[in-house]
């Protein structure tokens, strides 16, 4: 695929979609003041849905439409992930009261991990490792969600930034460790999140809209699982990438100031450390072929 097409579908289109959703929700032309302390305006925001749709559009534009069960080519974990993120994004749009329980986090985590791990369960694992891996990843996803939400409450301007940095590092690590497709799949989510982050910083409406953090965490966790099990992302790099939100939260809680510039910069710097370590490992483990692959 030409570089121009990758930039169009992987960056420009998702960024434009996110910007559109942000404008519809935040209405900057009306000069509305952001809510005290930042956060969502009273009108409906579609930012999480824009991120989910950006994933679908960016994936389709670069790699073709994600496969669907029953099609001629069976879906892989990466295809499932696009549909899962889209479904969760739609569920966050306006979940009816009756569906709130159904879409509770533990159930979403289990439902999202099941198709991602299905090939391992089918071809590689016995019951015991399957239960162990499934339980561990389920708890890990819930922990990442919890830390992302806590970070968004404590350091709202930093939360989206940490997720953008994590996604970019994940894309680079996945690409360097063996799968360009997974790196390309991460690009549209990164572009959409990055656009929302910059616009939020600009308008001082710094907290991500409802569901945006959860959706981004789900996308990164799913891509990390896919790159680890089905490509060649080393475990050390996966753990460093997954620890970035926790590091940001820990720094914000323990040493970071509650307000001001430092409240944003300290968590970003703390998240950058494990991400930089992961990138260093990925780069040092990559042996470039002088003739290209």
């Amino acid at each position, binding site marked *: 695929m030409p570089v121009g097409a990758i930039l169009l579908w992987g960056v420009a289109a998702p960024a434009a979609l996110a910007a559109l959703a942000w404008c519809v929700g935040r209405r900057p032309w009306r000069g509305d003041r952001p809510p005290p302390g930042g956060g969502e305006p009273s009108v409906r925001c579609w930012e999480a849905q824009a991120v989910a749709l950006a994933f679908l559009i960016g994936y389709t534009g670069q790699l073709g439409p994600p496969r669907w069960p029953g099609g001629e080519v069976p879906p892989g974990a990466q295809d499932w992930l696009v549909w899962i993120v889209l479904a969760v994004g739609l569920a966050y749009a306006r979940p009816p009261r009756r569906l709130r329980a159904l879409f509770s986090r533990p159930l979403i985590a289990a439902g999202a991990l099941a198709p991602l791990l299905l*090939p391992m369960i089918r*071809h590689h694992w016995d019951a015991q490792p399957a239960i162990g891996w499934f339980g561990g990843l389920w708890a890990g996803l819930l922990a990442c969600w919890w830390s992302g939400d806590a970070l968004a409450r404590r350091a709202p301007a930093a939360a989206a930034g940490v997720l953008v940095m994590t996604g970019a590092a994940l894309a680079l690590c996945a690409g360097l*460790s*063996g799968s360009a497709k997974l790196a390309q799949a991460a690009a549209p989510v990164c572009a959409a999140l990055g656009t929302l982050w910059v616009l939020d910083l600009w308008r001082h409406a710094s907290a991500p809209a409802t569901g945006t953090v959860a959706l981004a965490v789900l996308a990164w966790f799913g891509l990390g699982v896919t790159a680890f099990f089905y*490509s060649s992302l080393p475990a050390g790099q996966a753990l460093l990438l997954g620890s970035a939100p926790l590091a940001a939260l820990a720094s914000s809680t323990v040493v970071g100031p509650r307000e001001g510039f430092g409240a944003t910069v300290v968590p970003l710097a703390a998240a950058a450390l494990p991400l930089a370590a992961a990138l260093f490992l990925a780069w040092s483990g990559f*042996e470039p072929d002088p003739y290209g692959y």
Partner: protein
Amino acid sequence: MKILQHAPVALGATLFLALCAAALARPTTLAAHPTEAEAYAEAYAEAYAIDGTHSTVLFKVSHFRSSLYYGRFNEVSGEFTFDTADPAASSVRMVVRADSVDAKVENLSKHLRSPDFLDATQFPEIVFESQSVAAGEAADTLEVTGELTLRGVTKPVTVTVEKVGEGPGMRGARLMGWHATFTIDRGEFGVDYGIERGAVGREVELIVSVEGHAR
């Protein structure tokens, strides 16, 4: 008492005579030699296990439309049956481990195993299973029609296979070797990375050489 003393001798003699009578009474087929054709058919209508050590699966694909790149799969298994009297009764099932792909450079092998190409962890086996076999036009060839499953996609494929030879192996086991070359459109199997830019060709030639050990 004397009679009792000679009883073992009498019993042995009786047993000997009974065995001779039984041998003489057996059907004549044992005594008669089978015809050469019967022996030929009998010898070839048997099953062979594919020897993974002495079987080879190579692939050949164009690289940036400039050169032809060769790689291989290192783990091959399966079985085949061959019936000279009735080629249609022959069959083959061959399994190649997708994660055994070997491109000489480990980073390239990893890329081929990744979801970009074979997605070897999610779709660990490449399987060819015959549906029908017919005698080929040339001597010692067969037209094998079957289903090739690659990356979870199953497509019909017809392959002309040529018998390389046969004979006793190291420990006297009967060996038989077959060779085939055929081309697939990898895009049809969902292995489409790099086709658009022409970095890696759409058409992949598979060169398969199989050695079987009679079971």
